[in-house]
């Protein structure tokens, strides 16, 4: 069976959930061979094996942390040369897309970004994409070369599928471009203890209606009662009430959770672009005409300062 390369997104050896989802999709198209780079690369093997990786190609060098993007492209290109895969799958993060694009160009292949599903087809993998702020669903293929496809988080279920996961060292020679862009400083994002926004099963978001940074505590309490991640509209982020890393929408994160709760968010097209594929959508807004209500499974027309605390209280009571 053909091998499929899966680029591993990990933090010091801890594999992030979207990579495990990629392994599920990869198994529909071939045998997953994972590529893990940088500090802790070899520590990823156990988790990857448990989810279907037959092999884990690893390489560590200072370049991966010290320079932007290109060293990883060099390594992935080396992996493609070593394996001759039927496809290359990369998580759809900002960096993942850049790595994938440069790789595709180098190996003379087409690229599809932000797939939300993947199936085997007669002419290679078929990717489903959600476009124009999720108002259309397209099916696309790469028609030249080895398909390079980036896949959004929450596009497939994580499945256990034990495989060998044999660790092999990858041979990488860095290109002249590898050291072009130096990372001169890095401030890790502080952990909030809440789930990762793009990976969370439930997202609770606040918008302009929250009316102040201090009021975001209401949104956070609701999120915590559900074990959810916290999101924000751009209006709330631009006002400085919540960090940009939590922005949901076209220029923020794209989320696709089981449940999305929008409070004080009108539902502008750019916001919808980032949440419209959520399975269940709930909104609280005092304006019955707000466009967000066109999307909801359940909506409450009311003041969020009344509804949200009552909801949080009721959830706590029910959960005991």
């Amino acid at each position, binding site marked *: 069976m053909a091998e499929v390369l899966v680029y591993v997104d990990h933090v010091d050896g801890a594999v992030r959930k979207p990579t495990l989802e990629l392994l599920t999709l990869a198994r529909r198209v071939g045998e997953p061979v994972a590529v893990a780079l940088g500090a802790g690369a070899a520590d990823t093997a156990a988790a990857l094996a448990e989810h279907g990786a037959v092999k884990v190609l690893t390489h560590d060098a200072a370049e991966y942390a010290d320079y932007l993007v290109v060293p990883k492209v060099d390594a992935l290109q080396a992996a493609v040369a070593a394996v001759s895969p039927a496809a290359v799958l990369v998580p759809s993060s900002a960096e993942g897309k850049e790595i994938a694009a440069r790789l595709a160009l180098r190996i003379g*292949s087409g690229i599809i970004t932000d797939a939300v599903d993947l199936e085997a087809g007669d002419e290679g993998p078929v990717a489903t994409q959600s476009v124009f702020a999720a108002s259309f669903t397209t099916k696309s293929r790469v028609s030249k070369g080895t398909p390079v496809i980036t896949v959004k988080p929450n596009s497939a279920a994580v499945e256990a599928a034990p495989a060998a996961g044999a660790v092999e060292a990858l041979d990488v020679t860095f290109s002249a471009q590898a050291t072009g862009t130096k990372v001169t400083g890095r401030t890790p994002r502080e952990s909030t203890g809440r789930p990762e926004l793009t990976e969370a099963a439930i997202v609770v978001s606040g918008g302009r209606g929250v009316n102040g940074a201090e009021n975001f505590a209401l949104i956070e309490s609701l999120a915590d009662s559900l074990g959810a991640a916290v999101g924000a509209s751009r209006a709330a982020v631009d006002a400085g009430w919540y960090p940009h890393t939590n922005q949901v929408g076209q220029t923020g994160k794209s989320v696709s959770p089981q449940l999305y709760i929008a409070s004080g968010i009108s539902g502008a097209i750019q916001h919808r672009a980032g949440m419209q594929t959520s399975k269940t959508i709930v909104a609280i807004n005092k304006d019955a005409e707000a466009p967000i209500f066109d999307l909801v499974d359940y909506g409450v*027309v009311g003041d969020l300062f009344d509804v949200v605390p009552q909801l949080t209280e009721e*959830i706590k009571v029910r959960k005991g």
Partner: protein
Amino acid sequence: MSLRIVVTVKYVPDATGDRHFADDLTVDRDDVDGLLSELDEYAVEQALQIAEDADDAEITVLTVGPEDAKDALRKALSMGADKAIHVEDDDLHGTDAIGTSLVLAKAIEKAGYDLVISGMASTDGTMGVVPALLAERLGVPQVTLLSEVSVEDGVVKGRRDGDAASEQLQASLPAVVSVTDQSGEARYPSFKGIMAAKKKPVQSWDLSDLDLEAEEVGLEGAWTAVDSAAARPARTAGTIVKDEGEGGKQLAEFLAGQKFI
């Protein structure tokens, strides 16, 4: 020596319009009004600020697109860019990101550059890959997705706010930069700027000017193929209740029914 900045700008269908696909599954550009992609306004803005801080700089705005794409160039010129290049050719219809990066790279090389500035993503395709592809093709450093950028003594520096960390980046010119919508509000064209833009030069190039063949671009030259496009079924109308004191409890009841609690 003058700092030559090329800003790549895309002309896109208005996101608030009813965007859809044409029969050949390319983006329909006829039924929805087009405009300069809002995310490229940030690129123009940063170019203007970098130019203001430099002793001597010249900003060229570059677009690859249909005839109407001139509107996007005009807008960028009215914001303050110095001149414009429009790559226009019937054979470009249906070009994918890889192809677009080829045409842009050829045009950038022909124009001459020290710094290329792009937006973080186009508001129609939203791939966010063209800047990385340009860096790969031009063989220069990629300094992308910056929320802060400065250029001094032939070095570009910037801050990239990633998922896991915020990084400080640095590279020597020539380089390709892309900026996010966190990089600073884009200015509105002034009346003076709009008047001045009318007199600024706009060059038109076609594929032969760039030594490119029709087969390398367009729908035929694309390395990806769209097999189908379907409107997402409208969401079935949900339940909407008015809060009369029990709204939060009613919502909790709904969530419990859906097994979220």
